[in-house]
């Protein structure tokens, strides 16, 4: 048991948030008489929160470098508007339009990254300016009107599901198969890690712990895919999200680039004197944020099936809140992609649950604010206790 409590103590923030997420889910599951975790609602939850989660992934990188990006909501709206002009007005091929939109996002990110990294204007100011600038541009290019509808194939980003191989039946079989494949991968990965640590002569954690960990993951994955399979299967956007989470987690945890981002946020001067190209890293983190903001804008436009001047309002606040609830530090250097996703889900489940219960938007806002404050307060209290 000592090993577990040790493990738990070390990762209290990460596990703490997962446990909080589970409790919140159970709480609303009971309160809504089991509606919350119905297949239809779980699918809805994913679709409703996907664009915030995409933003949160980019935002957590920005926050780790010690900056902030207030412009992402406006940028999402701007790119959504541009994509509508390209697809609806100019009738461009949707694939081409999506690629061009993402490129535009990169340009927007480069614009802001330039001011932050090379001119050294605080990101708060640069992106506050960006928030106004791109909201204004959105209204200009849209002439204050909404543009709709998008081509069917484009809408599929947000409303489509992966196909069912068997065609028909009450369960989406491909979804179940994917669950099994993921399970095999999880088990393989766990035992590969054990083999490697034998090779390097590292201390081994006991076998039962590896088995328990793999078993827990396998159960969660298959329960999840089973629930989704009961409705329409895995939404397309979930596939995109999972791919992003895996890629970004890998980059942040296992690649030089990620290490440089953490080092830069932890101590910019020391990182620079250790050979990290701090300006370049900061610049690219903002370019990345621009691309993900563009993606988020596309997902939102596809879901709404229209581009509106008001799209993306307050997205930046939700994304930032997700990062901080997920354990990122406002002074930089600390945070994880998975944490930001969990933070986003905590907010998402609460939104959804409170709506199902019938709480008004007024109450929802207030309660979310308190949750953010308490989560970060808990974090800081924990840190001061261990220090």
């Amino acid at each position, binding site marked *: 048991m000592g090993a577990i409590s040790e493990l738990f103590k070390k990762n209290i923030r990460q596990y703490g948030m997962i446990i909080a997420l589970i409790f919140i889910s159970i709480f609303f599951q009971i309160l809504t008489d089991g509606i919350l975790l119905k297949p239809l609602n779980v699918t809805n939850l994913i679709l409703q929160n996907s664009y915030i989660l995409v933003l949160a992934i980019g935002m957590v990188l920005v926050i780790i470098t010690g900056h902030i990006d207030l412009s992402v909501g406006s940028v999402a709206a701007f790119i959504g508007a541009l994509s509508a002009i390209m697809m609806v007005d100019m009738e461009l091929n949707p694939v081409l339009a999506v690629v061009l939109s993402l490129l535009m996002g990169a340009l927007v990110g480069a614009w802001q990254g330039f001011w932050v990294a090379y001119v050294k204007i605080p990101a708060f100011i640069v992106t506050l300016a960006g928030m106004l600038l791109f909201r204004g541009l959105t209204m200009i290019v849209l002439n204050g009107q909404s543009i709709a509808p998008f081509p069917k194939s484009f809408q599929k980003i947000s409303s489509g599901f992966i196909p069912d191989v068997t065609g028909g039946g009450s369960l989406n079989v491909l979804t179940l198969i994917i669950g099994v494949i993921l399970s095999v991968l999880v088990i393989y990965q766990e035992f590969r890690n054990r083999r490697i640590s034998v090779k390097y002569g*590292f201390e081994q954690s006991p076998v039962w712990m590896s088995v328990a960990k793999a078993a827990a993951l396998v159960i969660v994955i298959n329960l999840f895919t089973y629930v989704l399979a009961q409705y329409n299967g895995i939404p397309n956007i979930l596939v995109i999200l999972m791919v992003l989470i895996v890629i970004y987690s890998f980059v942040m945890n296992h690649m*030089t680039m990620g290490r440089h981002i953490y080092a830069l946020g932890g*101590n910019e001067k020391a990182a620079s004197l250790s*050979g990290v190209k701090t300006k370049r890293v900061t610049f690219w983190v903002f370019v990345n944020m621009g691309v993900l903001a563009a993606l988020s804008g596309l997902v939102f436009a596809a879901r709404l099936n229209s581009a509106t001047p008001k799209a993306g309002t307050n997205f930046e606040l939700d994304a930032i809140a997700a990062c901080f609830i997920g354990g990122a530090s406002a002074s930089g250097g600390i945070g994880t992609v998975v944490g930001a996703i969990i933070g986003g889900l905590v907010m998402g489940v609460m939104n959804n649950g409170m709506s199902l219960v019938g709480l008004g938007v007024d109450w929802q806002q207030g309660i979310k604010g308190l949750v953010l404050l308490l989560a970060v307060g808990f974090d800081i209290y924990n840190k001061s206790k261990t220090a």
Partner: protein
Amino acid sequence: MRHLSETILEMKGITKTFPGVKALANVNLQVKAGEIHALCGENGAGKSTLMKVLSGVYPHGTYEGDIYYQGQVCQFKDIKDSEGLGIVIIHQELALIPYLSISENIFLGNEQARRGVINWNETTVKTKELLATVGLKESPFTGVSTIGVGKQQLVEIAKALSKEVKLLILDEPTAALNEDDSENLLMLILELKKQGISSIIISHKLNEIEKIADSVTILRDGQTIKTLDMKQDEVTEDVIIKGMVGRDLTNRYPERTPELGETIFEIRNWDVYHPTQADRKMLDQINLHIRRGEVVGIAGLMGAGRTELAMSVFGKSYGKRISGQTLMHGKEVRLNNISQAIESGLAYVTEDRKHYGLILIDDIKRNISLSSLKKLSRRGVINENEEVLVAEEYRKKLNIKTPSILQKTVNLSGGNQQKVVLSKWIYAQPDILILDEPTRGIDVGAKYEIYSIINSLAAEGKGVLVISSELPEILGMCDRIYTMCEGRISGEVERKNASQELLMKLMTRSRG
């Protein structure tokens, strides 16, 4: 003479425990009225903890033991309590607000005010008096950020005086000062003694203690080893060191027989201008070279341009309009940015390891690998297992005292932090290591280890450039010494010809 024998402060049987560590175990300290009492000990011996107990940072009840001050038992709840009785502590890291003026800083928290309205005239008059006492000629309205560290230290003392201090505690007051400013400060402490102010001074610089202290208490591992009277007992640096480390350090600098090879690094006609003041030349026609296996020293007073030289060479990380040549193994190399400098075989260990050397919130392992991630990765993916092995290797090799390489560097002592920084740069496998104040704020035992590391690097055929403000260190370690003054090389001396007096003369040799 009667008042000298009177005891102003007695701390009896002080025991302070932190979770898992006993920082102080039954410590006794007795300070006589009107004396200068030095407190010595290695880093982690418990000096600062003891002073925090005394000043109320650790309030009564969080420690065991008794404090008697002027014959009274004291139970301080916070710093205000102890300051009210005239006990003022000046910390190593100065607690001044950079953007406020001298007078605003001196009376911060103690404003000359009536019902919250500040009387600026009175503030200014009082500030002038205080500044005169500490021998500072600045105007009370000068911003604190515009004066040097030495003067800031004096402002701190003026601030202490404004609180009618009776017992002044100085934690490493000269650590960041050059020789002149240190001398000044020591004289001031002696002057205050004449006015009846007692002092407790924590210092690693034993020559300063010899110079001004009346008695010295030595702590080791949270225990009082002994208290010596500087006049009655035969106190020498060696006696103090022996008490601090608990063993004889027959030689403070490890033996080394230099084996010098060919010149591997050379700087020619190096000119550097100030980064923001376009016309201000910071370095003027610097020429120097380092041979294989050689330890070269750079001595100079603060402001002579030593750190500026090191940083401008290391990937132009300081200065503008840099001109001149750098040659590695006889061939000219361009060192336009830091990664180029690292790839060309340079390493630079900064003088300020907390702000410029370490990522404090990261663990030992990640700090060691940071400069050499390329070596540890393939196509940008880091081999983390290899990384653990490397970190373990250096933990053993450099004797970094830590339960694990996953320990965050913020939790390490100064000496161990410095070993982590050195590990980082040794693992980068440079040909030339520039070490800027490598032993600043490090205790005697760890210093010896750092010196041994420097020697082994030289023995491996690397060139080492040591910048240090401590002349004995330069004399003890270096084969050849450059002196700098006002941005120029003002002299070059072989070890066998060098003495403190000669170096000091060269370091102060101004142009013209």
